[in-house]
């Protein structure tokens, strides 16, 4: 009973810190939570990601503004930055869900969304190698081979750099890599994903995690 109360109280206060965009308080709450026995993956999976998921739904129904989503994501990111290294440590060969190479493609340096996606993937139990922004096709391929990755996740915000995604996917096919691909970012669309032969397309970070889970069990486009 007390544990349950404690948990609810914890979730409540964390939620308050997030809605106040109070990074410092959120970070200290998370540290406290870890101290009192919460598992990192519990905090992300049961507290942080549900808030983000709710926010993503609410942006569509105009229950929160775009600015609020951005600030909220920025706040949550601060907590994820602490939790992710711990999650990474706790994952071993049997518990890790899969290995993902992620990056913003060559010619584009917008990585705000990609960073959040990477954080969400990691908190979802994946081992993520983030190659950053303006990543050439070769770097994706090399990293994927080195890490024996299951999935390459590529993103772009700008329309002209869709070409770089196309090039990357061509290369993955040309090399007959046994690797799944998922793409996202403002410039992309489900039609584009199909056209260039990506295995999946994601609308946002949580949709990405959902699609990633499905890719791992062999389901491509819905």
């Amino acid at each position, binding site marked *: 009973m007390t544990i349950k109360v404690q948990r609810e109280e914890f979730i409540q206060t964390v939620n308050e810190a997030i809605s106040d965009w109070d990074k410092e308080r959120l970070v200290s709450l998370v540290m406290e939570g870890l101290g009192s026995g919460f598992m990192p993956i519990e905090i992300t999976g049961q507290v942080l990601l549900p808030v983000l998921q709710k926010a993503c739904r609410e942006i569509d129904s105009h229950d*929160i*503004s775009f600015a609020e989503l951005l600030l909220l994501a920025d706040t949550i990111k601060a907590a994820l930055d602490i939790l992710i290294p711990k999650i990474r440590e706790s994952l071993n060969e049997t518990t890790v869900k899969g290995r993902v190479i992620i990056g913003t493609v060559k010619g584009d340096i917008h990585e705000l969304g990609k960073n959040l996606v990477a954080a969400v993937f990691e908190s979802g139990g994946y081992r993520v190698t983030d190659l950053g922004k303006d990543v050439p096709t070769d770097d994706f391929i090399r990293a994927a081979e080195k890490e024996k990755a299951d999935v390459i996740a590529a993103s772009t915000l700008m329309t002209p750099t869709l070409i770089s995604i196309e090039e990357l996917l061509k290369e993955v096919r040309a090399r007959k890599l046994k690797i799944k691909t998922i793409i996202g970012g403002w410039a992309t669309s489900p*039609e584009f994903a199909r056209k260039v032969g990506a295995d999946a397309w994601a609308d946002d970070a949580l949709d990405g995690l959902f699609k990633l889970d499905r890719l791992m069990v062999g389901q491509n486009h819905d």
Partner: protein
Amino acid sequence: MTKRLVSVSFEPSGRTVDVPAGTDLFRLMANLGLKHSNTCGGKGKCGKCKVKIEEGFNALNPPTETELKHLLPEEVGQGYRLACAVRVPPVPFFSVRSLSSGPSTQILQTEGTPVYVLPDPAVKKYAIRLSQTGLFREEHILSELKERYGVTCRMDYTALTMLPAAIERGKTSVTCTVYCKKTVTAIEPGNTTGKCLGFAVDIGTTKLALYLVDLNSGKELVFSASPNPQVLYGDDVMSRISFAMARKGNLIILQKILLKEMARLISDCCVNAGISPNWIYEGCVAGNTCMVQLFLGMSPRNLAFFPYNNISRRGVTVRTGELPVRLPVHQAARIHTLPLIAGFVGADTVAARLAVELHDFRKPQMLLDIGTNTEVVLSDGDGSIACSCASGPAFEGMHITHGMKASSSSIDRVSIDPETLEVAYSTIDGAKPAGICGSGIASAIAELVKAGVIGLNGRFRDDLSRRTKRIKTVNGKAVEFVLAWRHETAVDTDISISQKDVVEVQKAKAAIYTGCTLLMKQRGITADHIESLVVAGAFGQFVDKESVRTIGMFPEVGSDRVHEVGNAAGTGARIALISLPKREEAERMARATEYYELAADPDFTGTYARAMLFPQRHDRDAGN
């Protein structure tokens, strides 16, 4: 295998063409010059190229996911589709109704400010009296130019070919056109020194403004303006770049359509001024980097990929004969494009900067050129630093539900009574409203914030909907605010501001505010240090300062230090046209201005996210 020809007719014009089945409807309409108000260049992102298929609908493939996202469920059954997703089906007849027809007349921003520059143009004409002695004529003319006018130059091939006829018809005198004090480019019979004209043009992503100028006096004779015809291939620079890269031949399409429109504008000006186009010897071009490259026929591929390197940053001089479309100017005319600063800070910014005099170099001055891309230049004693903000076209009335360009019957001012939430508005020409223009949007949103209808986070407050019918709700949530009821308008629908519109404005103003803030941070100064904030672009000219303050678009600089200058880029192009020294100054300035890449600043996201909120009132009153 020949593809079956389909007779495609377009309503309401009734225009009919025969095309092979499988033709892309979006491109077809673009090629025919049928305007659809797309903003994404046919990529299925904006949903603005909606058409109604009146015949042949059943032969089409089912709507794509993207189409379904942009179409209402009831529209799908009635034959509504997005032109960019439709290929002409193999049926004998196919009929399409275009749904978006833009307003016909536009108030374009072309009011230049008076320029006080001593004319010293690149093109000068000198009359030479011919001697009757039998010397070589070319040498005689060149030595006369040197002795009488102090100009040492040579004669180019074109001028030489004009010489025999000029001597024969001119008998006692000829007139030499000298370019940049170096080259005789043309020779005419008699004394024609009084007829020496040039044009200056500002090629905007959305509109073109062209001025015909007397090079002797430096006076503007007439101007003409029109929308940039490349809009058919995408509303913003990025979608034009994508189009130019998509297929071989697209680049020349963009260049030619632009040159043809320029040719039309020059002709217009000549007719209005009653002057022959043959007296036009030079043109001076300002525009963003992409527009300048498209004008020159240079692929904008370099602008598609970070780090957006410039191919060349110097000003370029071309002979009109080298362009793929003949412009109505003198055959020896040159066109000069102003220098560029960076991939996204172009000749328009250089021109704007040229037009804005710095009175005191020691005090920081900030120049903002508001457009689809907003450029910011911060100058002080140590030089200049510039950035480009992706403000988007919200303040040009685009991406806004009831947005329109600043033209007849657009709402330009709004006031809302904070007690009753009743609305008073005005339209540009007093006509019944058909939509809201950029300044109207800023004004409406500022009033909604002041009246508390929108919170500082940009969200509509739900609890006010009981107080007024103007707040429309869906499931108890406020989603829009009606400015003008259907019976008051010219468009048979309520004109309102939606939640989405507020977000668009928040994004636009946050982009501008963030650019200014990060540049100031780079220089280690705050808004208090800014001696003057110069706002160029049509938006700045028409909007009231109070609205801009309320929504928090600029740094918190006192109203007395904010100045609006209208189309500074156009003014700068005219200055560079009539003054060679100023043109050289532009060249130096472009080199001395440092470019700052906002997207690479680690503080960008945080600053941008916070800038999206509307500022607290007491902050504004305190002026900090």
